[in-house]
């Protein structure tokens, strides 16, 4: 039997190769899934951790113990530290991540202290940090290790504490309520002022505010305080910083479980990344389902391809099967033969598929946008053993679809096969049941339903949930229903075309109209295949392009310029008075002279401004102070977002020193227009209360201004913002904009930190700007580059998955469509050799036969291709805008615009056109090489 099977495969080697291709791709797509899921999971967890770090301004993976221990049980620092170390060792047994740093904080509640130079007593904590000296820079005085004081215990304070309390080196702090055995209060001398090492030092994983109101002492001093001054308790905080880059999708759930276990066993334990892991797990599961939804159309097309090729093979082997059955072979025996044959191909396909799946996953991970690849690091997408069972499952499915056509044929006797009674007669089931209409209505209803609830879904997306996977199947369902509708209607179209020229058609068109019109059912799978491939290909392309382009445009709008930065400003404070040292701005002109930038401008941005007009007061006002000309030369704004070009607004502002540009919502809310007077006020520098975790502000002096212009959009103005309320629900907040002249604002409120906006020259790069700043030792507190922001957006998990899957699906369906198309027509024409022989025998000229072939191609293939383009375009217009909200759920100044990127259509159609032309050429050669007598003999055989 094996020899027979190998012989059969050799005899139909091209078809067998096509089947092998289909099976390999099927196994590839299946096996790619777990690798891509876990790879995307790795990216997702890293993104979540980094987002946490950015949001909370702290290291994202820290295991901590905080608590208070009694000095009766723990009389010194060593006893507390030793206890904490034991816990650390326990944690490391379960969570096998590399430790980055282990930091211990011990504290004492110092109390109110009187300073030798302070007017009033202030509250201080006394703290000790392990290895502190290695992570600070002493800016004044001495550090703890070298500090020597004649009287009092040496301590150091941070620059911010020094500023807040107005402390100086050498000042004495006395804690009257902490006394030793002799009744002497604890007295400290400020030996030095320190600055924490820059943000890149993981040691300072907490926000700086955490350490406010602290004086820091050495370990010896700490122990002395505990032993001599009767402190009854020691506060401790142990932080074990873990290498979060080691947290991967495969272990995240395990870590979450261990963390829960630690929490249950130890009430002092906490992990700052527990919530991140929980959020990640939820998103990960949702993402898995979404990935299946994105892959499903491709999988179905591949299964259809396998079925179609098998059908082609079995069409030519029908006689053989009937002969086997007539010679006594049972259905089971025949089926077994084909199952073994399919199994051989499927096994080979499985092995190849695993390799293909690996390449597909890495390829998909490298996409930056639709059909755009980059040399990204894809090490987060490693090979996983899970690929093997997935590939095996695909192979089993492939065997099923390959043997499905066999089952029907094993029921045919030789007599039935000869008489053709095995062929299906009448309308197919789907046509009788009006499945096309029903599915069309379902998909349209789903679209309507989603549109109705789009706001609610958008808020869910903003809250961090992943979309319902079914959304991604709506458009393919619509395209599929269009393909069925096409099959229903094309017969009438062909009948109409035949009838309108019935007296005039020559023999070739006459034969073709009848051939095509009466074999619609036979070609239904190919037609559906073509329409689905092209329709879904166009839809995927338009969807991906629309999402990516709108995302890029929105990011560009939000940035407002190529590069935004802010240098480190030195702040001074005496009492309530605060002032800043302005860094040299003129140095940036060298960037323009050096050809790195085309424009550099100062932009004062303050998002805590109050605006009042006509008895209405607005909060959430963002104020920008600009130099109008420089700003106009530097910033960027898309056309069409305002009624008139935004330069008109700038000109109006330039003509009015006390003028302001306001956003449309301000004008509507306050019922003001150009020429009206409004007033606005900045809020005083905030102070943060650690105990209350609140910020306190107060409004500064009010300024009056005349409305110079009203705009809908402005560079950097984000009208909508989203945040959680007290109940945790996501709420939309509308922001207002006020733009004034920089000079006017500064003259009233004084110099304050501003951003520097830069427009890069054609050959300028952010790296060149960064090098420039580094050479001049300019430290930055803000650095934001437009291409990086856009790339970061496109690297977000949802975008990455979509770009990757759509690209992969597009390329695979293009490949199988081309191959399927070629083999279908080659087999079809080969199977009709007798008919062509008869036509030639009857005197049909060669060019008439060629015309028949071309007409058949046009009506049988190009027509469905056209239907596919139409279905894809219609699906784009109906679904893309609505579905883009999944990716860009926030309301924005820039409405979603559908991008019909015709080069993709040209690529897709171009490839198929080339295949079509190759097919025509091959068929012409096939027919041209056909000898009439041999064709007739074949028919007789």
């Amino acid at each position, binding site marked *: 039997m094996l020899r027979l099977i190998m012989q059969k495969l050799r005899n139909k080697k091209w078809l067998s190769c096509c089947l092998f291709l289909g099976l390999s791709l099927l196994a590839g797509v299946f096996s790619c899934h777990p690798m891509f899921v876990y790879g995307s999971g790795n990216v997702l967890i890293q993104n979540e951790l980094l987002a946490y770090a950015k949001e909370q301004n702290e290291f994202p993976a820290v295991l901590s113990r905080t608590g208070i221990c009694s000095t009766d049980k723990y009389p010194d620092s060593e006893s507390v530290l030793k206890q904490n170390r034991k816990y650390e060792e326990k944690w490391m047994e379960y969570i096998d991540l590399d430790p980055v740093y282990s930091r211990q904080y011990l504290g004492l509640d110092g109390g109110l202290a009187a300073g030798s130079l302070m007017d009033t007593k202030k509250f201080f904590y006394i703290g000790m940090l392990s290895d502190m000296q290695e992570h600070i820079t002493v800016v004044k005085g001495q550090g703890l290790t070298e500090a020597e004081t004649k009287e009092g215990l040496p301590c150091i304070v941070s620059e911010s504490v020094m500023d807040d309390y107005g402390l100086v080196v050498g000042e004495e702090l006395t804690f009257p309520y902490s006394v030793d055995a002799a009744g002497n209060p604890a007295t400290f001398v400020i030996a030095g002022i320190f600055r924490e090492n820059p943000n890149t030092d993981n040691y300072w994983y907490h926000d700086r505010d955490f350490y406010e109101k602290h004086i820091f002492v050495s370990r010896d001093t700490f122990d002395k305080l505990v032993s001599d001054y009767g402190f009854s308790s020691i506060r401790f905080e142990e932080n074990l910083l873990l290498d979060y880059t080691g947290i991967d999708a495969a272990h995240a759930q395990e870590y979450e479980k261990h963390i829960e276990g630690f929490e249950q066993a130890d009430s002092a334990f906490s992990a700052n990344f527990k919530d991140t892991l929980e959020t990640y797990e939820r998103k990960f599961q949702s993402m898995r389902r979404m990935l299946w939804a994105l892959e499903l159309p491709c999988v179905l097309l591949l299964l259809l391809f396998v079925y179609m090729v098998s059908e082609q093979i079995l069409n030519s082997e029908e006689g053989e099967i009937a002969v086997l059955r007539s010679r006594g072979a049972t259905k089971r025996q025949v089926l077994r033969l084909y199952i073994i044959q399919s199994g051989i191909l499927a096994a080979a396909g499985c092995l190849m598929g695993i390799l293909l799946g690996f390449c597909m996953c890495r390829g998909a991970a490298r996409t930056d946008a639709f059909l755009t690849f980059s040399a990204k690091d894809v090490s987060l997408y490693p090979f996983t053993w899970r690929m093997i069972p997935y590939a095996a499952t695909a192979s089993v499915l492939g065997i099923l679809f390959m043997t499905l056509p066999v089952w029907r044929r094993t029921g045919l006797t030789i007599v039935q096969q000869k008489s053709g009674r095995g062929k299906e007669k009448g309308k197919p089931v789907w046509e009788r049941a009006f499945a096309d209409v029903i599915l069309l209505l379902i998909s349209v209803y789903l679209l309507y339903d989603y549109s109705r609830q789009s706001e609610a879904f958008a808020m869910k997306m903003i809250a961090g949930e992943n979309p319902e996977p079914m959304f991604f199947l709506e458009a393919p369902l619509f395209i599929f229903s269009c393909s069925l509708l096409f099959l229903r209607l094309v017969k009438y179209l062909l009948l109409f075309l035949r009838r309108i020229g019935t007296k005039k058609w020559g*023999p070739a068109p006459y034969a073709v109209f009848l051939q095509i019109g009466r074999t619609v059912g036979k070609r239904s799978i190919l037609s559906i295949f073509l329409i689905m491939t092209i329709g879904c290909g166009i839809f995927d392309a338009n969807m991906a392009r629309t999402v990516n382009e709108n995302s890029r445009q929105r990011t560009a709008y939000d940035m407002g310029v190529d590069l935004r930065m802010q240098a480190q400003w030195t702040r001074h404070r005496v009492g309530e008075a605060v002032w800043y040292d302005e860094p040299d701005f003129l140095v940036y002109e060298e960037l323009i002279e050096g050809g790195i930038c085309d424009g550099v401008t100062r932009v004062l941005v303050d998002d805590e401004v109050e605006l009042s007009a006509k008895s209405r007061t607005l909060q959430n006002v963002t104020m920008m102070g600009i130099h109008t000309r420089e700003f106009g030369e530097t910033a960027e704004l898309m056309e069409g977002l305002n009624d008139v070009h935004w330069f008109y607004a700038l000109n109006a502002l330039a003509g009015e020193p006390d003028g302001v540009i306001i956003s449309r919502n301000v004008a509507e809310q306050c019922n003001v227009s150009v020429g009206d007077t409004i007033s606005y006020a900045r809020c005083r520098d905030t102070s943060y209360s650690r105990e209350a975790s609140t910020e306190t502000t107060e409004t500064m002096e009010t300024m009056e201004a005349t409305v110079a212009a009203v705009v809908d959009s402005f560079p950097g103005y984000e009208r909508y913002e989203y945040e959680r309320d007290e109940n945790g629900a996501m709420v939309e907040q509308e922001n207002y904009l006020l733009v004034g002249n920089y000079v006017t604002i500064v003259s009233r409120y004084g110099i304050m930190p501003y951003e520097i906006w830069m427009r890069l020259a054609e050959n300028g790069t952010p790296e060149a700007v960064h090098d420039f700043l580094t050479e001049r030792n300019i430290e930055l507190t803000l650095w934001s580059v437009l291409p990086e922001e856009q790339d970061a957006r496109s690297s977000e998990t949802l975008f990455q998955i979509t770009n990757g899957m759509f690209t992969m699906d597009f390329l695979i369906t293009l490949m199988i469509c081309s191959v399927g198309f070629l083999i279908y027509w080659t087999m079809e024409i080969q199977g009709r050799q007798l*008919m062509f*022989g*008869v036509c030639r*025998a009857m*005197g*049909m000229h060669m060019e008439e036969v060629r015309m028949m072939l071309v007409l058949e191609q046009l009506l049988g293939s190009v027509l469905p291709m056209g239907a596919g383009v139409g279905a894809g375009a219609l699906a784009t217009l109906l679904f893309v805008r609505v579905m883009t909200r999944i990716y860009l759920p926030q309301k924005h100044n820039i409405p979603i615009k559908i991008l019909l990127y015709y080069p993709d259509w040209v690529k897709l159609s171009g490839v198929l056109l080339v295949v079509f032309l190759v097919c025509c050429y091959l068929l012409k050669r096939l027919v041209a090489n056909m000898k*009439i007598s041999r064709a007739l003999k074949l028919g*007789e055989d």
Partner: protein
Amino acid sequence: MERVIYTEKLSKSFPVGGARVQVLKEISMEIPKGKLTILKGRSGSGKTTLLNMLGALDEPTSGEVIFQGKKLSRLSAREKENLRRYEFGFVFQSVALIPVMTAYENVEFALRLGAYAGDRDRRIRECLQQVGIGKRMHHMANQLSGGEQQRVAIARAMAHHPKVIFADEPTGALDTGSGFAVMQIFRELTQTGEVTIVMTTHDPELMEQGDVVYEMTDGGGSP
């Protein structure tokens, strides 16, 4: 007897492996006009090959086929196609109707091919009536029995008023009754004297129905 086609030392050989197999050996014969000529012989005797030569479906290795004074070897491919289109008709053993067409449409196809100038519908009905398929003319080809299909094939072959109808084993796939019915139609067609029919068969009972019988043995023919 007037001859419509005749051959002069017609030979045909095919390459098989490294050697050449001589199928026809210098056959010189005449096909009389308006008669039913039967080429008889066992399987492999070269009757189909000879028929293909006569019908301009294939080219001889040497020798000539002359139709109405014209040597076929001197005709271009297009001229031969026109010959088959307007002057000849063919009936094949495998019937070879176009399966997606009805009986009516199969005959109509032949008329369109032959650029029939008259009333196509009338001619189609006439031909199908003549072969006894009048009541089933709008049935699809695969809905007809083997005998009925062959009769439609005959109607197709004769519809455009050809001068010669070539029939290769037309009754080979039919039962005896159907076979005789086909022969009956051929006899009726030749009665007018305008249509010449050349057919091959290995059925000895049918041979008696021919006006002229050539026996093919080992590539040679003799009356």
